[in-house]
């Protein structure tokens, strides 16, 4: 009861509520704009919080983060362009739903799943943080490497047709991710003396090229801007989702939530990985996997529950160990230090009010984002009524700004175009782009943990298979590649 009153007073003061509302709106806008993200929003706002008390500052920053993660699904649904890496898998089904004239339904599923993910993960983080943190210490580079490996192979196994094409796409992604200074010894690889390449290829430029430039260039070339705008007579009640649809997705949401919480909790990973992994799991365990990618709400439930669950997951190592779970928590940790707080196990003892204000702000921000998106849900599909000769050039301008602002170099805008053309080439050959993206995102993590795993071990590579958790992940990864072709062979026999 001792800390309850100061926490409630801090959270529910008028200034705190106004700041959180403003932060949530800003976060949703940043998340929805291609190329921008909640991370950029938090970074931009950080200097403005120096004059505030730590409690007010963290409430504002957390609401931008929560809004940013949730808002990413808006452009994924309306335009097929993920606002952030955390919404890549949302595009697969929410966008086809939108093309079928079910935009409000797709948005409703996204809003509901986002809320469930953030709200529950924040509560779990608040209750279990000190206990779960002890688990994290036991995970070594072997387990993290094997998890990343299995995440890539699970995505490869989802690619239709020739498995070699999926694996080739992932291999190209790994090669692209190794451009620039290597981890551990900072050896400069494949940069050909170019200073821009030395820092590595930028992920935002890659994502914008792969999705936005590809989509707009192909839609224009093929004249396929064939959206069905919703009939205003078709009234949608509530979130546009039936109770039966929610009931059918309970297990899907629980599994996706667990994946999101777990991935978010692992240092260095985050919503960018969790949404793809949850989507692949939802597809692989579905009774109707053929419907995925064509406008199946199960895919939207999986992706949005998991990416938002990563918010609470990432807060666990941040508060209890002082380790960032993703890029945004890294910025937030920097903010805590600037406000004179010491993140880590002692934060619970020295500043318990601050810790619970942080969790409370996440829960309140989740509710605010839910309400803001619920009331905006019926207005958003109107974006699709804008003629495409006005909408697409505007989106491209935003993409160019997004790519430029990421590194403040025009090289990044050129890189975005390069990846746009590269993805068109991949489409022509028939290489799936998701394994490429996944391998690119996870490449640095995979490499650093592989090298650490070998360096720390006295038995070379043996620890990767002798440690039970690592072996389990490797088995899942290898099994996901080998089993589908074996199953086909046995069926023929």
């Amino acid at each position, binding site marked *: 009861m001792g800390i309850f009153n100061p926490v409630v007073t801090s959270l529910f003061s008028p200034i705190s509520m106004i700041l959180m509302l403003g932060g949530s709106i800003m976060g949703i806008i940043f998340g929805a704009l291609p190329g921008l993200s909640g991370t950029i929003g938090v970074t931009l706002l950080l200097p403005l919080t120096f004059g505030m008390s730590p409690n007010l500052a963290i409430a504002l920053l957390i609401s931008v983060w929560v809004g940013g993660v949730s808002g990413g699904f808006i452009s994924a649904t309306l335009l097929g362009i993920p606002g952030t890496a955390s919404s890549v898998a949302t595009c697969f089904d929410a966008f086809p739903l939108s093309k079928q004239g079910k935009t409000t339904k797709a948005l409703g599923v996204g809003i509901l799943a986002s809320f469930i993910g953030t709200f529950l993960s924040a509560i779990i983080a608040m209750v279990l943080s000190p206990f779960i943190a002890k688990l994290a210490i036991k995970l070594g580079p072997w387990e993290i490497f094997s998890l990343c490996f299995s995440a890539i192979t699970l995505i490869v196994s989802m690619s239709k047709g020739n498995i070699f094409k999926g694996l080739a796409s992932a291999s190209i992604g790994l090669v692209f991710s190794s451009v620039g200074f290597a981890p551990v010894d900072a050896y400069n690889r494949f940069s050909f003396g170019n200073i821009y390449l030395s820092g590595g290829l930028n992920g935002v430029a890659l994502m914008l090229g792969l999705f936005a430039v590809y989509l707009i260039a192909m839609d224009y070339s*093929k004249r396929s801007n064939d959206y069905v705008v919703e009939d205003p007579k078709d009234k949608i009640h509530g979130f546009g989702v039936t109770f039966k649809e929610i009931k059918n997705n309970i297990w899907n949401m629980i599994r996706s939530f667990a994946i999101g919480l777990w991935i978010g909790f692992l240092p260095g990973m985050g919503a960018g990985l969790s949404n793809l992994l949850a989507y692949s799991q939802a597809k692989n365990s579905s009774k109707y996997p053929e419907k995925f990618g064509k406008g199946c709400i199960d895919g939207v439930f999986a992706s949005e529950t998991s990416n938002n669950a990563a918010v609470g997951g990432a807060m666990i190592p941040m508060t209890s160990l002082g380790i960032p779970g993703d890029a945004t928590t890294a910025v937030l940790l920097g903010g805590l230090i600037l406000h004179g707080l010491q993140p880590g196990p002692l934060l619970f003892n020295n500043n318990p009010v601050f810790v619970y204000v942080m969790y409370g702000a996440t829960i309140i921000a989740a509710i605010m984002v839910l309400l803001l998106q619920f009331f905006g849900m019926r207005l958003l599909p109107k974006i699709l009524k804008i003629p495409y000769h006005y909408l697409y050039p505007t989106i491209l301008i935003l993409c160019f700004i997004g790519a430029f602002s990421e590194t403040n170099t025009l090289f990044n805008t050129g890189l975005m175009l390069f990846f746009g053309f590269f993805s068109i080439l991949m489409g022509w050959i028939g290489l799936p782009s998701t394994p490429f993206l996944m391998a690119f995102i996870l490449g640095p993590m995979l490499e650093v943990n*592989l090298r650490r795993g070998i360096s720390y071990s006295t038995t070379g590579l043996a620890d990767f298979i002798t440690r039970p958790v690592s072996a389990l992940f490797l088995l899942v990864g290898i099994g996901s590649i080998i089993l589908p072709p074996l199953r086909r062979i046995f069926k023929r026999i």
Partner: protein
Amino acid sequence: MHKDRIAGIVIALFGAVILFASTKIPVRPNTSDPGSGLFPLLGGTGMFICGLGMIATAKKQSGKPFLGKEEFTRLLKISLVLIIYVISLNYLGFLISSPFMLYALTSLMAYEKRILFWRKAVFAVSITILSWLIFQKIFTILLPTGKLF
């Protein structure tokens, strides 16, 4: 030759080049670290093997081509506009290049539909100014000013 086979050969060749280049990356002596060459070596090997796999499993595809002649021409047009835009951003900056790019793209994407000149011009200029005000002034995100200015 078959499309999958050509793609397989190109991927295998690139894989072999990366594999070879990775072996040239030095390993630090007296450490158990496998070196910075290991990871690209794995990626290159993957590309090489998968390229060979694609050659071996290549099947003749039937149906519609990826892009028809007319579609390919349109792809070239939009690519040209975007490439010129990136180059002009470098020299002329955001405020001068963007209206031209927006105007060109609006004209292209309208296809046969005729849109009045002034409408396209007003759209191009207003979107440029609006995005400049929002990003440069409100979000304090610097936009390219151009080498010539």
